[in-house]
C-alpha cells in the first residue's frame, strides 16, 4: 500500500452501482475494462430520462418532445466533438462502435477509391476489426495489404523500417494495442502517411477512453472509437472524419434520414454527418455517451491517465516478482495503455482466468480478437488485466495474490 491515488477513487466507485455487488461472496474486482467498461449511474440516468421523459424519434418531428430529443442527440454530438477537439460537430458521425466506424471508412472510401495493385498499410498489432474490413476491400478491389511489423520483445512498432513502405493509399493503425498495451506514436505515423499522400485512419478504441486525444493535433483523417469502453452505453460509437473527406464520400448505408430527396430514379444525400446515419439512430446511446463524456471531463482525462499509469506500474512491479511470469509489450508503464497481457509458465490463460474468477476477479483470456499478435508471440492465448478510473491499488494486490495462488496450485515454484 502507501500509494497515493490521484483520483478520489472511493467517490468514483460510489457512482458505479455494480461495485456494491458480490461474486461468489467476494467483492467484484473488475479488470476487463478494455473489453467493456462499467457505467456510472449518471449515464444510466441520462438514458432513463430519454426513455421516460422525452422518448421520440429525432429530426423532422414537429412536436415538442421530438425537438427536445433532437436537441439532446445533437448536443451529445457537440460534446463529443469538443472532447476530441474536432473542428466542428459535423465531423462526428454516430455509428455502432469502432468496428462499424472502420467498416464505414473501408466501404464508403476505400472500396470506391482503391484499384488493383493499390496498397493498404496496416500494422501487425491490429485488432481483427482493423484487419478484416481491409481484407474484404482487398478481395473486392485487388488491392494489397502490407503490415508494419512490431518487435516481439518490446512490443513496439519497428518505425525504423517505416520508409520501406511507399506508394500506399491508406494507413490504418491502432493508437493503443489492446494486447500489447503499446501506445503508438500517432503523430509520426499520420505525418508519414501524409508525406506519402495517403490517408491516415486511427483505431482509437483503447485510447479515447483513457487519455486526452486531440484529432487536430494528431492530424488524422479518420479516428474511430466505441462508447461502451468509455462509460457509455453499448451500441454507440463514433467515426471522426475530416469534413472535406466526409463531404466527398458516398454514403455507407442507404435509407431514411441520410437522404435529401428520393425519386424513383435517383436520390440525393443529406449533409454530413447525417449522410452517414441511415435509419433511426441510437438516440439513447448517443445521449448516454454524451453523459459519459461529461463524467470523464469532470474527472479530467490527464488525471485518469495518471491514475491508470500508476496502477499499471504497480501491477508491472508486482508481476515481475511472480515466477514463470511473462509480460507482453513494453515494460515501462509510461509507454503503455492501462492493460497488461501475460502468461504464467504453462498455465493456460483460460485456466488462469477460471481460477481468478473463483476470487471474484474478472480478467479476459484468449486472443482478444488479435490472433496475428498471438501468432507472432507464439502463444495461443494470454490473460489480460485492464484498468480504468475506478480500479484501486488494493485490487492490484488482490490480483497479484490470486495469480500467485494459481501458480502454487499448478506447482510452479
Amino acid at each position, binding site marked *: 500500500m502507501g500509494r497515493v491515488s490521484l483520483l478520489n477513487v472511493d467517490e468514483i466507485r460510489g457512482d458505479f452501482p455494480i461495485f456494491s455487488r458480490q461474486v461468489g461472496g467476494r467483492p467484484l474486482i473488475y479488470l476487463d475494462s478494455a473489453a467493456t467498461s462499467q457505467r456510472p449511474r449518471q449515464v444510466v440516468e441520462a438514458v432513463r430520462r430519454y426513455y421516460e421523459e422525452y422518448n421520440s424519434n429525432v429530426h423532422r418531428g414537429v412536436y415538442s418532445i421530438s425537438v427536445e430529443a433532437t436537441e439532446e442527440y445533437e448536443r451529445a454530438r457537440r460534446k463529443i466533438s469538443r472532447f476530441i477537439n474536432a473542428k466542428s460537430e459535423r465531423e462526428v458521425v454516430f455509428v455502432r462502435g469502432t468496428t462499424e466506424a472502420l467498416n464505414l471508412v473501408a466501404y464508403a472510401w476505400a472500396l470506391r477509391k482503391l484499384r488493383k495493385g493499390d496498397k493498404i498499410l496496416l500494422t501487425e498489432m491490429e485488432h481483427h476489426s482493423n484487419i478484416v474490413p481491409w481484407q474484404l476491400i482487398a478481395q473486392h478491389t485487388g488491392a494489397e495489404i502490407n503490415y508494419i511489423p512490431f518487435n516481439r520483445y518490446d512490443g513496439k512498432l519497428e518505425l525504423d523500417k517505416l520508409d520501406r513502405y511507399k506508394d500506399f493509399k491508406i494507413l490504418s493503425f491502432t493508437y493503443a494495442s489492446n494486447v500489447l498495451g503499446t501506445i503508438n506514436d500517432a503523430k509520426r505515423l499520420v505525418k508519414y502517411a501524409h508525406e506519402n499522400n495517403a490517408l491516415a485512419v486511427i483505431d482509437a478504441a483503447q485510447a479515447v477512453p483513457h487519455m486526452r486525444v486531440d484529432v487536430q493535433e494528431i492530424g488524422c483523417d479518420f479516428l474511430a472509437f466505441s462508447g461502451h469502453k468509455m462509460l457509455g452505453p453499448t451500441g454507440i460509437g463514433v467515426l471522426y472524419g475530416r469534413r472535406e473527406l466526409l463531404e466527398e464520400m458516398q454514403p455507407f448505408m442507404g435509407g431514411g434520414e441520410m437522404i435529401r430527396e428520393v425519386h424513383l430514379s435517383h436520390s440525393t444525400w443529406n449533409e454530413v454527418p447525417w449522410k452517414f446515419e441511415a435509419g433511426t439512430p441510437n438516440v439513447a446511446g448517443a445521449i448516454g455517451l454524451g453523459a459519459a463524456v461529461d463524467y470523464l471531463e469532470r474527472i479530467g482525462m490527464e488525471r485518469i491517465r495518471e491514475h491508470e499509469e500508476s496502477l499499471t506500474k504497480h501491477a508491472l512491479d508486482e508481476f515481475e516478482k511472480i515466477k514463470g511470469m511473462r509480460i507482453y509489450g513494453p515494460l515501462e508503464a509510461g509507454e503503455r495503455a492501462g492493460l497488461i497481457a501475460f502468461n504464467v509458465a504453462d498455465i*493456460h490463460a*483460460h485456466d488462469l482466468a477460471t481460477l481468478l474468477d473463483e476470487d471474484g476477479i474478472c480478467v479476459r483470456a484468449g486472443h482478444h480478437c488479435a490472433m496475428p499478435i498471438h501468432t507472432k508471440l507464439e502463444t495461443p492465448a494470454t490473460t489480460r488485466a485492464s484498468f480504468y478510473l475506478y480500479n484501486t491499488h488494493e485490487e492490484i494486490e488482490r490480483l497479484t495474490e490470486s495469480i500467485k495462488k494459481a501458480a502454487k*496450485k499448478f506447482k510452479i515454484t
Partner: protein
Amino acid sequence: MSDITFEIILDHYRNPRNYGELGDATVKVRDSNPLCGDVVEVYLKIGGDGRVEKATFKGRGCAISQAAASMLIESIQNKHVDEIVKLGKQDIFDMLGMEVGPARIKCALLALKALKTAVYGFLGKKMDEEELS
C-alpha cells in the same frame, strides 16, 4: 473444485496418457475450440470386430481440454464403438470429477466431440450435435 480433483487434472495435463500420433490409425479427427484455441486430434485403430485396438491423441490447450482428452482416450482402449457412441457429457464430468460450467463446457467436451466424430465417421454416420448438448 476440490484439491484432489485438481491434482488429478493437473497430472493428466502435465503427463498426458496415450499421447502422440498413431501411424496405422483407421480413422483420425482433429477438432478445435476457438474460445481457448484448444486443439485435440484423436487417432483410432479399430479392428474388424468394431473394437478399438488402440487409441491415442495429440493436442494443446487448457488443462481442462487436455486432461479430459487424456482421461477419455485412456478409458476407451479395447471398447467397442457401440459403447463409445453412447458416451455423453456426464461421462466426461465423471472422469474429471466435477461438473464444468457453461464458460468452460466446450473445453471439457472437445475430445469427446472429436472422438465421436471419428467413430461416426468409421460407422459412416453423421453425428447429431444434440448428443453433446
